[in-house]
């Protein structure tokens, strides 16, 4: 039981990152039906932006909390800038082109960004990331189930990010405009909404959340590396599909589901198929089962159902 609970905690931590990154996929998809495969790289850039802020911009001895806030801002600046540039120069010119075109472009952008970072941080990757939140500081959740400080932080910031985003989308002027654009862009324009701006907003918000998880991941693992966006990106995309791509709550649910499935598969899957090697296979089994019975994902109907 104690092992189960500890694994559950592990799964929630893992799922928090997936969910936070998945939001970026799902928002952009919901609004422009674009699978932005380079979103994983936005997450990676968030981590590197935070690292750069710490190592280059911050003077030694900056108080930890201030350092974290500034690192988050630095990560966001880098992530958002990259997202803005890719939206403007890679995706916008292809709007209205066959679907395959932006998809291939996304892959190109993804490789481009990875190699770009490699050029700035050559050779010895992964890069050590400052351990500002002591990983040996454990919080007890009862019954000797524990969570370390940076892992707890990951979950807390992820939940804050998720709640903030969904409140924003449901309860703000721009959020409503995003929903409207997702459902019917032409009509949204006729309501006076500048849909180009809404698309940019989706990229920006996705990038901001990805930067949050990039920083959290750096603090949690103590490293960032140029390829970190790939695996997380694939997982987060899976989470978005699992939850119902285009659906914001779905991305969160999908993220946690995926994280917990992976962890439980590691612990409990029957023998020849157990262990870390098979956890991804189990994750995909769950994905396929969900898609067989609910083709549009766990939270069913897409927000983006188009007229």
């Amino acid at each position, binding site marked *: 039981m104690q092992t189960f609970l500890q694994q559950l905690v592990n799964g929630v931590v893992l799922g928090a990152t997936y969910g936070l990154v998945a939001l970026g996929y799902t928002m952009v998809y919901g609004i422009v039906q674009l699978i932005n495969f380079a979103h994983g790289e936005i997450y990676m850039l968030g981590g590197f932006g935070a690292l750069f802020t710490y190592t280059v911009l911050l003077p030694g001895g900056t108080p930890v909390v201030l350092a974290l806030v500034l690192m988050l801002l630095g990560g966001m600046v880098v992530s958002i800038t990259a997202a803005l540039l890719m939206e403007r120069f890679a995706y916008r010119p292809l709007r209205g082109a066959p679907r395959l075109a932006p998809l291939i472009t996304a892959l190109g952008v993804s490789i481009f960004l990875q190699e770009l970072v490699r050029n700035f941080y050559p*050779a010895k990757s992964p890069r050590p990331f400052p351990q500002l939140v002591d990983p040996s500081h454990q919080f007890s959740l009862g019954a000797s189930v524990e969570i370390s400080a940076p892992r707890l932080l990951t979950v807390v910031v992820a939940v804050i990010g998720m709640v903030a985003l969904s409140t924003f989308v449901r309860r703000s002027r721009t959020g409503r405009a995003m929903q409207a654009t997702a459902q019917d862009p032409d009509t949204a324009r006729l309501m006076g909404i500048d849909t180009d701006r809404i698309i940019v907003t989706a990229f920006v918000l996705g990038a901001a959340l990805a930067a949050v998880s990039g920083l959290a991941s750096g603090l949690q693992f103590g490293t960032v590396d140029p390829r970190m966006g790939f*695996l997380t990106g694939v997982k987060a995309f899976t989470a978005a599909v699992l939850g119902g791509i285009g659906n914001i709550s779905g991305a969160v649910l999908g993220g946690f589901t995926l994280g917990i499935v992976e962890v439980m598969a590691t612990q409990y899957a029957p023998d020849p198929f157990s262990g870390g090697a098979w956890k991804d296979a189990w994750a995909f089994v769950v994905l396929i089962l969900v898609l067989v019975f609910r083709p549009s994902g766990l939270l069913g109907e897409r927000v983006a159902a188009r007229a």
Partner: protein
Amino acid sequence: MQAPRLVRVAAPLIIGALVLSACGSKSESGSGSGNITLTLGVIAPLSGDLSAVGNGIKNGVELAIKQANENKTIKGVTLKLDAEDDTAKAEVGAQVAAKLVADSSVIGVVGPLNSSVAKSTAPVLSQANIASISPSNSNVDLTNRGVLATGGTQTRPYKSYFRVCATDDIQGPFAADYAVKDLGKKTIAIVHDKKAYGQGLAEAFAKQAKADGATVLPTETINPGDKDFSAIVTKLKAAKPDFLFYGGEYPEASLLTKQMKAGGLNIPLMGGDGVDAAEYIKIAGASANGDLATALGAPTDSLASAKQFLTDYKAAAYADPADPYGAASYDAANAIIKALAKAVGDGKKSGQAVRDEVTKEVQDSDFEGVTGKISFDQFGDTNTKILTVYSVKDGKFVAAKSGTFGG
């Protein structure tokens, strides 16, 4: 209308990506005076996660070439370096190997770093009978040593493939003996990354550890690139192991040991030479203390023979460290240089003849290198199978024991 527009946008991006990835993948050192110029190739990961190690290999070779040219070791020949980046990928390895074969001035190759890459470069290079000497391939298949464990007869798969390092079938058991006999560990967890190197090493370790009387827990595996190992840590913790052996490389190993210790599983992690890297400690920090790694050969700085090499290496002011394979690569390069000197002495100066002759002479190598005696058995394996266990003390790998398996 749309297609050209797509091309206009996508093409620069893709080309940009390729250009960037190509940056720094290739470097050639200049040629001096001499009648003809021949080329010594290097195949190693010069970019990506393993680039520090790969550049150490390149630098060791470059140093040997520089000295040979300065000392005019090979009469009438100026040697030049062609270092190719295999990005630690087998497909890329095959491509760059083919490229070197196509260059008729290439008379030998040092590398690659990874066994998985060697499996695709060795056939290509052997086809052209170009001698290739790896400083670090430890996978048994490359010289078909695997059959020895089952009592079969060893045959040589690649006629011009050599290596100056010991192999996994020895590295794994050597590590197991140390863990069980020297450290007295009883319940051992095994984790590997499913790659040829990691899995081979972990399996050889597990077999010997069992034979030595330890309890070996069911093997766990991870994916290269994974970062969150908390689920595996929680699972292992329940089985209460007192030791963990990891088959794989430092990027994952360093995170695993950190998460193990943060998760309350306070046992040493031991790995093979893939873990024996300064980055391992840099990333794992204090968690690395007490962890162990085996490496091929004896520690470079413990060898009197390597003092001059280390001095020269330092003088050359390379960005990346010589360890772990700079010295072995230097020896491998010198084996080829010596072979070439003999071949040229015999009047073979170009074309296939010189490649054939160099391979033949490498086979007959017999000299004292900086890492020990350099000579090969009939399958291309070194006769000097020295290994060392290092343990992390105060943030540094410190040699704990050198020797050979069973010896």
